[in-house]
């Protein structure tokens, strides 16, 4: 988990910066339309990058919250409950994000 937190961090540094540049500097956020999103998401490379972005960001974020709580000293039942709740929240976010991405690229309709 320690290594995975660092590996996802290295990936996210690049992809988060790319995401900000693309959707705020290259395209402007206020100009985003469904058609533009569909066009980007129909590109297999872009779709794969965004899906990996979703999975790595969710893992890094949820595991980061768990680490912060362990760091604060939670243990026993609260620690187990936090692990289960965060794990479930992460899986639900990935499931919903994947569903949205598949609608965006037209695979689901």
């Amino acid at each position, binding site marked *: *988990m*320690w290594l995975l937190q*660092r590996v996802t*961090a*290295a990936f*996210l*540094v690049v992809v*988060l*910066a790319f995401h*900000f540049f693309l959707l*705020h*500097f290259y395209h*402007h*956020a*206020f*100009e*985003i*339309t*469904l058609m533009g*999103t569909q066009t980007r998401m129909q590109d297999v490379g872009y779709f794969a990058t965004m899906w990996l972005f*979703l999975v790595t*960001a*969710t893992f890094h*974020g*949820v595991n*980061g*919250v*768990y*680490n*912060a709580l*362990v*760091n*604060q*000293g939670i*243990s026993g039942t609260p620690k187990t409950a936090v692990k289960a709740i965060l794990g479930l*929240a992460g899986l639900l*976010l990935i499931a*919903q*994000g994947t*569903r*949205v991405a598949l*609608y*965006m690229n*037209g695979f*689901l*309709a």
Partner: protein
Amino acid sequence: MSQSYNRGLVEDFSRWKEFSAGMWAWIFHKFTGWVLVGYLFTHIAVLSTAIPAQQGEMVTNSAGEQVSVYTNTLSLLESTFIVRLLEVGLLAVAVFHILNGIRLLLVDLGIGLESQDKTFYASLVLTGAIVIASVPTFMAGIGGA
């Protein structure tokens, strides 16, 4: 593996005067991390309007045109000054988390431990510079400008 360290209570506010650069970096990294993970869930919720939009749900926008619910939601949010301001805040949080994250990755690799306080200050200055330089882009088009 995650371990528990006794850093004392951050909530004991009078302690802030004793904090070193490393302690501030730790607090800022944790705070920006909480904001980013919270935003991630919100972001997916907003983007979920693409589902009804793909199923053909249209709404009438402020100009009286029929547009998809996804386009209208994003356009409405982006036309609000407070949302633009929050986006600048999000950029600040993300840039600091990225720069301090690179600093942490390097320290983990054994690079720059002896200058970790200077690299923290550099992260802060660079974050400030990038955010200030980005304000015109993030505020572009607000109020039809």
